[in-house]
């Protein structure tokens, strides 16, 4: 299953809900302002690193770039473009958007 999160974890608790409810082996894609959660050295980066032990974490590169965060992404988070986003949705059996 693919989970998408689109709000900053410093604005909304949708990332926390996603991390709490999603199962091991799932994919989590951070888009829009949620890409701030993909940056290292924040209050939530340890939670992301913990989740990465059992879940695949991706971030949408155009949104990372638009926010000037490309040099600060946590090691191991895969950056994908819109075509990659489409492939991820196709590859996973369903998608849950945490809005």
């Amino acid at each position, binding site marked *: 299953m693919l989970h*998408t999160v*689109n*709000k900053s974890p410093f604005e909304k608790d949708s990332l926390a809900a996603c991390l709490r409810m999603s199962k091991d082996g799932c994919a989590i894609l951070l*888009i*829009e*302002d949620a890409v701030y959660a993909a940056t290292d050295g924040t209050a939530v980066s340890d939670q992301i690193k913990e989740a990465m032990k059992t879940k695949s974490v991706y971030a*949408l590169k*155009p*949104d990372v770039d638009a926010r000037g965060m490309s040099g600060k992404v946590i090691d191991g988070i895969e950056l994908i*473009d*819109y*075509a990659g*986003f*489409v*492939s991820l*949705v*196709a590859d996973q059996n*369903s*998608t849950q*958007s945490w*809005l």
Partner: protein
Amino acid sequence: MKFSIQVNEGPYQHQSSDTAYQFTKAALEAGHEIFRVFFYHDGVNNGTRLTTPPQDDRNIVNRWSELAAEHELDLVVCVAAAQRRGIVDEGEMQRNGKDAENIAPGFRISGLGQLIEAGIQADRLVVFGD
């Protein structure tokens, strides 16, 4: 593969209408079929042809209309959400006694059943919004 898209956010609000558009475009470029794009809640505001954004800004409404024309997309606006927000087509204008209609090319107004059908008929439903 068949995709359906749900857009819950208006244009120029945050980023979801843009993300939904970019995703839809990328899916078409990858050879997938878009069964329907359903505009719900504030997302119905994507369907008014009366917007005039600055010339150097993207025209979100026209962009949807152009993509629909190019790929014969079914862009459906939720009727109840549209009535609340003043998105009107010819039929709604007459039924509700309004003096104008404003639906953008390629969009049509219909009911929530269209969203349910979009979820059933497509292999994947992806939701964008706040």
